[in-house]
């Protein structure tokens, strides 16, 4: 008998195989095996110590393990790589790792020495001379002492109130392989070696990344075999991709997310935002070196009008750095109202009745819109502002290094966390030329930030944080705009998971709904 399949049989088989997904039953009941999520910035590095923002961090959280990790959609933690974690004193934490947790690509199993390397490298310059921008997360870390192959002790020079939430359980607590980082060098940035639920299989500039389930991961198996993190900068394009089913999950601005409510197969959830926006002024560049000019700008602007234009009035106004749910929120912060006469008086008093300036802004509709309103409002007091609209690649570098000295004003959005020290760390003197684009350098603020992170008593810590915000307010270098409301839009058959604020995603905890 001829056992070779005929061409007709092969075609019939192929047709049947192609038709299988259309059949109801088993495949449909199992749900999706892969999903696509939107990232609005290009990936820079998945290395936890050098990540450029939450978009990098969200991938790192899925690729690396931590000693402890947050439970899905919660700030409560549970053991992850650690079999045991015990705080024996305010400055000492002991840990024991689970055995046999394998790094990908043949880099062996996780040891206490990898934990030591992962945490201590935040304070040490990398071979290329760069230090981690997240050094503050590990503030007070003295050393990680290795007491056995799988056990060790984290020793702090001073208590760190945010250590568990900000460092240990989050991206800064990700455990990398010492051997892999050393051997791969710069290549490790986008070819990370982790032991977590997913591994990065490809990354392409302007396109995104593909994550695939790590078969060697010893923890709970994630729901999806593959996650595609698609780079889509324009929110409207992301909305269309969601509608067409090309995308399963995206965080969108309110103006784009609202119309999606009620769209077939799409769910929209709204969360109080932990991301915050402000208009910053470079204090070290004339004429903004004069506080009266900065105060005049603050009086010239109408924050409520800017928010109405940028967010359809759906974003709450922010009057200080720390937003309401976070410890240290300054409820009595001054609410500045527009006062054209006062702005003109201050400018005249400063000897600058007419100023030509520039507002650097990201090329996102909401930012551009608010900047246009700011431009018009400033124009009425004699400040002629030109908009310097930049795409993501150049915008995020505009205020860094030497180039940062030339920035006049800028509109900025930072992502926050529930701990005040995380929010405060970007405005210390050592962040000038990094993320402190205002070039706000106050030794008193630096001391308060340092004190606040070590303070264990919530009431005393809150007072320190408020005092620090008063200094920021007095500088008049910050015009706070909003902690924007986060809108998470997703296909109804996908259940996303993220930490409060919806900025920090738990990709490995996404499930079929």
């Amino acid at each position, binding site marked *: 008998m001829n056992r070779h399949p005929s061409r007709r049989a092969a075609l019939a088989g192929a047709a049947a195989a192609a038709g299988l997904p259309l059949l109801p039953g088993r495949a449909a009941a199992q749900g999706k095996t892969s999903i696509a999520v939107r990232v609005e910035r290009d990936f820079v590095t998945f290395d936890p110590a050098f990540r450029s923002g939450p978009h990098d961090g969200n991938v790192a959280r899925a690729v690396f393990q931590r000693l402890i990790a947050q439970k899905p959609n919660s700030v409560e933690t549970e053991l992850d790589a650690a079999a045991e974690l015990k705080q024996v004193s305010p400055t000492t934490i002991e840990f024991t790792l689970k055995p046999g947790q394998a790094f990908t690509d043949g880099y062996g199993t996780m040891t206490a020495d990898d934990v030591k390397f992962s945490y201590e490298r935040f304070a040490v310059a990398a071979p290329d001379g760069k230090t981690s921008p997240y050094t503050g997360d590990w503030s007070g870390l003295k050393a990680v002492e290795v007491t056995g192959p799988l056990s060790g002790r984290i020793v702090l020079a001073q208590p760190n109130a945010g250590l568990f939430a900000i460092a240990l359980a989050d991206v800064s607590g990700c455990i990398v392989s010492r051997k892999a980082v050393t051997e791969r060098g710069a290549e490790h940035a986008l070819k990370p070696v982790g032991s977590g639920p997913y591994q990065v299989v490809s990354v392409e500039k302007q396109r995104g990344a593909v994550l695939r389930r790590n078969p060697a991961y010893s923890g709970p198996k994630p729901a999806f075999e593959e996650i595609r993190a698609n780079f889509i900068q324009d*929110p*409207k394009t992301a909305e269309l991709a969601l509608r067409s089913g090309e995308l399963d999950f995206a965080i969108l601005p309110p*103006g*784009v997310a*609202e*119309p999606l409510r009620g769209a077939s197969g799409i769910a929209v959830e709204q969360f109080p935002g932990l991301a915050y926006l402000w208009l910053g002024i470079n204090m070290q560049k004339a004429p903004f070196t004069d506080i009266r000019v900065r105060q005049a700008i603050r009086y010239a602007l109408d924050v409520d*009008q800017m928010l*109405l*234009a940028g967010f*359809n009035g759906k974003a709450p106004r922010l009057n200080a750095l720390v937003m309401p749910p976070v410890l240290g929120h300054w409820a009595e912060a001054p609410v500045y109202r527009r006062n054209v006469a006062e702005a003109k008086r201050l400018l005249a008093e400063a000897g600058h009745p007419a100023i030509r300036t520039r507002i650097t802004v990201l*090329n996102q*509709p909401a930012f*551009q*819109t608010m900047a*246009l*309103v700011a*431009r*018009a409002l400033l124009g009425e007091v004699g400040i002629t502002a030109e*908009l310097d*609209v930049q*795409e993501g690649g150049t915008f995020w570098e505009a205020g860094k290094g030497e180039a940062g000295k030339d920035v006049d004003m800028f509109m900025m959005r930072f992502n926050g966390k529930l701990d005040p020290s995380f929010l405060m760390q970007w405005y210390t003197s050592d962040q000038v030329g990094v993320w402190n684009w205002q070039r706000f350098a106050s030794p008193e603020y630096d001391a308060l930030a340092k004190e606040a992170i070590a303070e264990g008593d919530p009431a005393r810590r809150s007072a320190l944080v408020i005092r620090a915000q008063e200094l920021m307010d007095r500088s008049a270098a910050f015009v706070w705009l909003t902690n924007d409301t986060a809108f998470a839009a997703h296909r109804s058959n996908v259940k996303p998971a993220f930490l409060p604020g919806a900025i920090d995603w738990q990709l490995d905890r996404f499930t079929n709904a």
Partner: protein
Amino acid sequence: MTILSGSGRTARAVASRPGGALGLAVVAAILVAALASPIVATHDPDALDILHRFAGPSAEHWLGTDHLGRDLYSRLVFGARVAMEVALFAITAALVGGTLLGTLAASVSAGWERPILVLFDVISSFPSLVLALAAVAVFGPSTLLVMIVVAATLLPHFGRVARAQVLGVRNAPFIEAERLLGASETRIVLHHLLPNIAGPLIVLASIDLPVVITVEAGLSFIGLGVRPPLASWGTLIYDGYAYLSDSKLPVAVASAALGIATLGFTLFGEALRDAVDPRLDGGR
């Protein structure tokens, strides 16, 4: 006098065709809007009125307002000025540069002609968008940059036509007669060659105008062209697109303007070509 009467004849020939008359009317309307925009516009195109954003058409705002409460009609009128500025600058620069290079290529020896033709090939190998992306990466986006990029991409187009035209007439009996009379090459080029090849080049320029208008709008739409708050039809469409769920009017109005302008210039260009080169009339 001869030139004027020639132009008048051409204009009458263009207007005598239904498509040409429509094209001429559209071109005239756009030119008036561009030249007299401060008079034709009813509002300051950059004046914000946040409380009246997305307003519908009314006696106050003929075409309604955009997401910042700016008057759409006025922005459309000023957008015509930007479109015409970019188009006329780019076309003129490409026409002059291309004609000079094309004439030069046809007038020099093969050894010197080759580099000019290679230059045309090199420029033509870059689509305008790719060239614009590269230029923006180096110099940053601006209106001037859009003009230069568009002019550069059109230059070989005019250069090749100019070269072919010059090659066609350079050995004509009247040119040979001039040479025998001792006329210099410069005189022959300026007084005889250029006037004889001008017609087809001007027709080509009129046909390229709508292309430039759409290229400018396209570059501005993707953020590589005109900077906010300057009104361009491309930025009007982009702004409207971002707020499509709030109002469809800005996108509809700006797209219609772009469509009508493109159609008008195309009809005008085709009618002009038919009028200048009657051999093509009815031949299509």
